[in-house]
């Protein structure tokens, strides 16, 4: 018996089963089952994503079939063409990108000041302010759409991207403040102090010393803002009835109605909508997770 390695160095699962007569088999089993389970889980989690892309690239004859085609043997881009050529598609992309980017940048700008104050200064009411942001972060925007609709209508701003941008800014703001605060706090205070000793003012010390160190944190934080704003659905559903002023989530949710059972085009549209987020997420994954645990929030 040369089975030396158990999957983890920590609690040795082997011992728990070592009472069994057939030791060797038990050990092999203890090594096999986690990997086997992991493979099954992996397949289960990836399958819907795979099926989306798979369908998007398949010719219609492979979609409308009694036996599923598991791999596109004759991949086609027709469905993407259908999706892109759909009415208003490019306008909607532009709307979504504009609103999302503006909201994230605005939130970051405002949040940087707040995060700095919360991470570096002690003042009366600090804890209540943190608490306020925590509550605001979980605000039930979905159930306030009626009030938001009335407010926006009275301001005569229906079908405009301005209220959407502002609301999305505030939607992602608390999360941005709370996570950024963690990143600011992680920058050693000494760096700032020595910069101030060297003759920088407080603002300069922040801009030259802290801000560059915050860049990775800013990127991870903005990922969640990006996802929230990119995905937002109920508010645009009620505020922007005019097709020219809508965003991609709304278009995608109505795509089926527009295209009937054209699953190829629908999946192509879903892929186009999901790809930016999937790429961003994979790229920023590690930082994102640490940011999450410190802010305890989800996109």
């Amino acid at each position: 018996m040369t089975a030396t390695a158990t999957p983890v160095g920590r609690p040795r699962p082997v011992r728990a089963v070592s009472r069994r007569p057939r030791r060797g088999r038990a050990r092999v089993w203890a090594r096999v089952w986690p990997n086997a389970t992991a493979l099954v889980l992996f397949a289960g989690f990836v399958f819907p994503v795979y099926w989306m892309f798979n369908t998007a690239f398949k010719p219609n004859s492979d979609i409308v079939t009694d036996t599923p085609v598991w791999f596109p043997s004759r991949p086609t881009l027709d469905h993407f063409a259908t999706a892109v050529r759909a009415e208003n598609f490019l306008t909607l992309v532009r709307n979504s990108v504009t609103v999302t980017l503006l909201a994230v940048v605005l939130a970051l700008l405002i949040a940087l000041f707040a995060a700095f104050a919360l991470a570096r200064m002690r003042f009366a009411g600090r804890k209540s302010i943190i608490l306020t942001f925590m509550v605001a972060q979980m605000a039930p925007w979905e159930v306030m759409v009626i009030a938001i609709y009335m407010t926006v209508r009275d301001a005569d701003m229906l079908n405009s991207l301005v209220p959407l941008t502002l609301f999305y800014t505030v939607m992602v703001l608390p999360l941005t403040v709370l996570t950024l605060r963690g990143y600011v706090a992680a920058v050693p205070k000494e760096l700032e102090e020595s910069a101030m000793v060297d003759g920088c003012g407080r603002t300069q010390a922040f801009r030259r010393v802290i801000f560059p160190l915050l860049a990775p944190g800013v990127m991870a934080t903005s990922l969640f803002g990006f996802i929230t704003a990119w995905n937002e659905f109920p508010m645009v559903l009620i505020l922007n009835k005019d097709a020219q002023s809508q965003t991609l989530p709304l278009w995608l949710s109505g795509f089926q109605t527009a295209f009937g059972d054209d699953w190829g085009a629908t999946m192509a549209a879903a892929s186009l909508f999901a790809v930016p987020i999937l790429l961003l997420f994979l790229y920023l994954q590690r930082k994102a997770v640490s940011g999450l645990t410190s802010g305890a929030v989800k996109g």
Partner: protein
Amino acid sequence: MSVQTDDAPPPVRSTPRTTPPGTRPYADDRPGGPKQTTGRLPYLLLLPALAATAVLLGWPLVMNGLLSFQNLNMTQLIQHVTDWAGTDNYRATLGSEDFWRVTLRSVLFTAVNVAVIMLFGTLTGLLLARLGPRMRLLLSSGLVLAWAMPVIAATTVYQWLFAQRFGVVNWVLDAVGIHSMAGFNWTGGQIPTFFVISLLIVWTSVPFVAINLYAATTTIPKELYEAAALDGASARQSFATVTLPFLRPFLLVMTFLEVIWIFKAFPHIFAINEGGPDRLTETLPVYAFVEGVGNQHYGTGAAISVLTIVILLGLMSYYLRAAMRQEEDEK
């Protein structure tokens, strides 16, 4: 809302809970900690963030409250008339059987989903900790892919997976011998629709729990296991005495968060079947939307949403208490 924040419990991250609550002051307020900053600077820095939140989140909240006391239907909406109705909306809502049925359904829906998510997520997280580096990378990339799928894209994919004709799920069920499922209409009944919605929610939520839990297990000091092994603890015992107590605070906070998120889940349910069939899959947020916007009873919708917010605040106060505890140790 009353949330206790002053009884700072001991650190959660670094050591298991040992000190009773209320014995330690807030770490940074102790003498020798960072100095109290006086002056207006911190408030000035916070002003933009607070002002924006107050105007764009606070005002709709107030407005929502005001609307809930108005008789507001299509007529009043078009004519811009304010027609106060006192507590009529609340009385009508609280007196309606529908509201209570939906509330009960929301609670059940949340409980079932959160239980499944926490169980499945925890097991997956623990599995991640046991895997070798390559398998771990593989599984966590799969989790991240599911996690990152935008909600609307995910619901669209699920509609396709569960499509009555040519949906792959029906085909698989037929292929494994359950022929009655060949042309099954998943959105035709309450339970099947809820099944699809729940699967979608579990699929997108488990990665968060699993990855976070795995991250938490990596912070458990190895010495604790060594000590347990020296004491002759079996694998099961060291799991019960070291791993579990260490992870408990994380599990607690994540459960609260999931409860809040699932309770107010809107797009998943709405985009799958708009709360149908026959309004049988409406949870409170969807009910408020359908009643208020869909059926144009804006005042009643506002009252339902106020009641939903009240329930959410109750849930949140539990979460915030746990979160503030973690907050204190991260200093």
